[in-house]
């Protein structure tokens, strides 16, 4: 089951109808029930692991309030849950097991919950059904964002919500924006990337750089598009999830990039790894070591082949201030290029090929070849035009998000309806989906 699929949209529609028609008190339980159904459809292993994680952290949360051995309980809970994550994600000891969907997201969420309880940030949830909803709420199991219990629990459990057409519209627009980014932009670029990555001997130098830049756009539109769908749908239910992106390619340094990219993961690492390690309070050297540890861990979380990617990001973050120029636009371009080149680890999937490709960018200058072959990557001229216009639209929106959102908010219902319908038509016509195109899965699903 994919996030952008008829089945999930049907489930979402049923959820909204039940959510606003059944008695108030049933609201959280409707969500829980539907989440269980969605989860169960992914197979036994998914259900088993989420029940295990939820029950262990639920019990640990209650125990932490009552016991003297708080540290031991915290340590055991974290170790068990982290071990499951590490084992399953890396296929250690158990072979041929299907990684439960959303395992990373719920593991991060339960760990943050248990640490926050340990830190006495908030009280543990006593109602196990409600706690299950926190871990299992189905929209974020596909692609995140990684939520914090204290940030979403109130709206997740709130029962006195009335159907609000304006909120439904805003949610729908956000969902459609996400679907647009995924189907019209990311999926088109995916066609080019799959051609370029198939032949690593030919497609080097300019081709590699072309792929890197396009992949930056693809990954952003793919990942943030999925998040938009999740956040948009939650907005319809009047549940505000944490934002995960804030115009990341506007960043002027790697440090800023990580404040804008996959924010819920970066802030998780900051709060639960970097700060406990001492953060920036223990001198320059120690701070830098902490940064490297966090980035290597982040790389490791993506997979062992991404450790070098994490390390390089850590290094660029540390040396960031030395390569900063007085020109904002130049800094943005440099940061974008660094990030794009480092995505090589994700494009070519193995560190060796990624390094070869990165090196080729600086040694092979076959730009004339690239221009000559530009129409041989599976996209027609019309498709390139649609792609370029769409990317420009995303850039304009990202730079003027607040202004545009306010403008839409204040529009008349009729205008809003026209926007909504036009968006659907644009996606239906210009989207890349259906027979002949199979990459409907989100890139970030697997992490």
């Amino acid at each position, binding site marked *: 089951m994919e996030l952008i699929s008829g089945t999930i949209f049907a489930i979402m529609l049923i959820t909204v109808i039940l959510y606003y028609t059944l008695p108030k008190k049933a609201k959280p339980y409707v969500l829980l029930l539907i989440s269980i159904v969605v989860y169960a459809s992914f197979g036994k292993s998914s259900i088993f692991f989420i029940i295990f994680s939820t029950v262990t952290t639920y019990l640990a949360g209650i125990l932490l309030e009552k016991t003297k051995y708080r540290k031991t309980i915290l340590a055991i809970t974290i170790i068990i849950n982290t071990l499951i994550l590490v084992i399953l994600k890396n296929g250690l000891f158990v072979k041929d097991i299907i990684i439960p969907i959303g395992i990373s997201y719920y593991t991060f969420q339960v760990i943050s919950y248990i640490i926050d309880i340990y830190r006495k940030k908030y009280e543990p949830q006593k109602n196990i059904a409600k706690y299950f909803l926190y871990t299992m709420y189905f929209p974020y199991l596909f692609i995140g964002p990684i939520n914090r219990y204290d940030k979403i629990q109130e709206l997740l459990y709130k029962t006195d919500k009335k159907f609000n057409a304006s909120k439904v519209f805003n949610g729908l627009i956000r969902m459609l924006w996400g679907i647009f980014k995924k189907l019209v932009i990311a999926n088109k670029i995916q066609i080019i990337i799959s051609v370029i990555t198939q032949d690593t001997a030919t497609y080097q130098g300019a081709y590699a750089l072309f792929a890197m830049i396009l992949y930056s756009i693809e990954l952003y539109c793919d990942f943030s598009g999925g998040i938009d769908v999740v956040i948009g749908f939650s907005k319809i239910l009047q549940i505000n999830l944490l934002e995960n992106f804030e115009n990341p390619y506007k960043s002027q340094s790697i440090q800023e990039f990580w404040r804008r990219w996959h924010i819920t993961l970066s802030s998780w690492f900051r709060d639960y790894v970097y700060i406990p390690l001492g953060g920036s309070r223990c001198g320059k050297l120690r701070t830098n070591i902490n940064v490297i540890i966090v980035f290597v861990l982040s790389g490791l979380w993506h997979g062992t082949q991404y450790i070098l990617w994490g390390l390089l990001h850590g290094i660029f973050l540390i040396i960031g201030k030395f390569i900063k120029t007085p020109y904002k636009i130049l800094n943005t371009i440099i940061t974008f290029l660094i990030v794009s080149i480092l995505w090589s680890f994700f494009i070519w999937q193995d560190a060796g090929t990624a390094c070869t490709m990165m090196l080729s960018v600086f040694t092979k200058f076959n730009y004339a070849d690239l221009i000559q072959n530009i129409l041989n990557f599976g996209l027609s001229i*019309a498709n390139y035009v649609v792609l370029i216009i769409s990317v420009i639209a995303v850039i304009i929106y990202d730079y003027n998000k607040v202004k545009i959102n306010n403008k839409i908010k204040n529009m008349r219902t009729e205008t809003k309806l026209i926007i909504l319908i036009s968006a659907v038509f644009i996606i*239906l*016509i210009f989207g890349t989906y*259906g*027979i002949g195109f199979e990459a409907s899965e989100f890139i970030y699903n697997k992490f």
Partner: protein
Amino acid sequence: MKRFFKTLKIIAIIIIAIIIFYILNKLLMPKYMTDLVEGSMISQYYREPKNHEVIFIGDCEVYANFSPMVLYEEKGITSYVRGSSQQLIWQSYYILKETLKYEIPKVVVFNVNSMRYSEPVSEAYNRLTIDKMKWSKEKYDIIKTSMLEEENMLSYIFPILRYHDRYDKLTKEDITYLFKEKDNTYQGFLINKNIKPVQSLPTKRPLANYQFEDIDYEYLQKILDLCKQNNIQLLLIKAPSVYPFWYDEYNEQIVEFAQKNNINFINFLDKVDEIGIDYTQDTYDGGLHLNLTGATKLTKYFSEYLKENYELTDYRNNSDVDKIYQEKLEMYHKDIM
């Protein structure tokens, strides 16, 4: 009042959106008018007067090989070929079921070649048969039984989901035939005047299993039952082809079925010489299908058989019908010149 106008505006927007959506679906779907005309054969039937005594169902071996115009010219038999590319047996069943809603013929001729297939072959063939069918229970059933794993019902209901990427391939044809269609066949017979003699043939390979699958028998039985319920005589045929795809073991099973159910079966593969088919002249694709001259020879031969074995009306004596057919024949003769 203000609220009333607002509601009215919203309703108007929704209606306009539905109309645009409808037009977009129509616009993006291939028209099958000049290219892949096989896709338009199924829908041409809806525009025809429904007075046929013989209905053909089956794959390309019926629409390429049998000309209803010749049947009329020779014996005054009114007939229609409801064939389509790679028409699978369950598709033939549902197309027959649909046809019977419009008219009850005296004879249904089914080409048994599709007994060789027990599962959907390709999405493209499905589309050629199904896309232009009118919506009915039969269309729903034909989609349900024919879909490949990667297909979904929604893309048949809303063709835009399948054909959206044609937005940069639209031609004048898509505008010209947006709301109308032209006839590409003569009562379902697709004229092909090209000549491509037999040069090389695929080698006849022994199969591990010659037994027709249960699903094929199931639908053959359904076709027979449907005919019986409507007092129609079912005639099984195997059209001629020099390609060695029809094995003796296949033939035996059909003979057995025909004998058991007391129906006729003609294997034209055995009658090529008798009919006078010359594979240096009478085929457009090296022996797989007959061309116009081949189809004319075969249909003439078949018209004799039909006249001898079935009580069919000679409509040449019916001035109303004859008038229509004479007009068609005039055009037909011009086209085949």
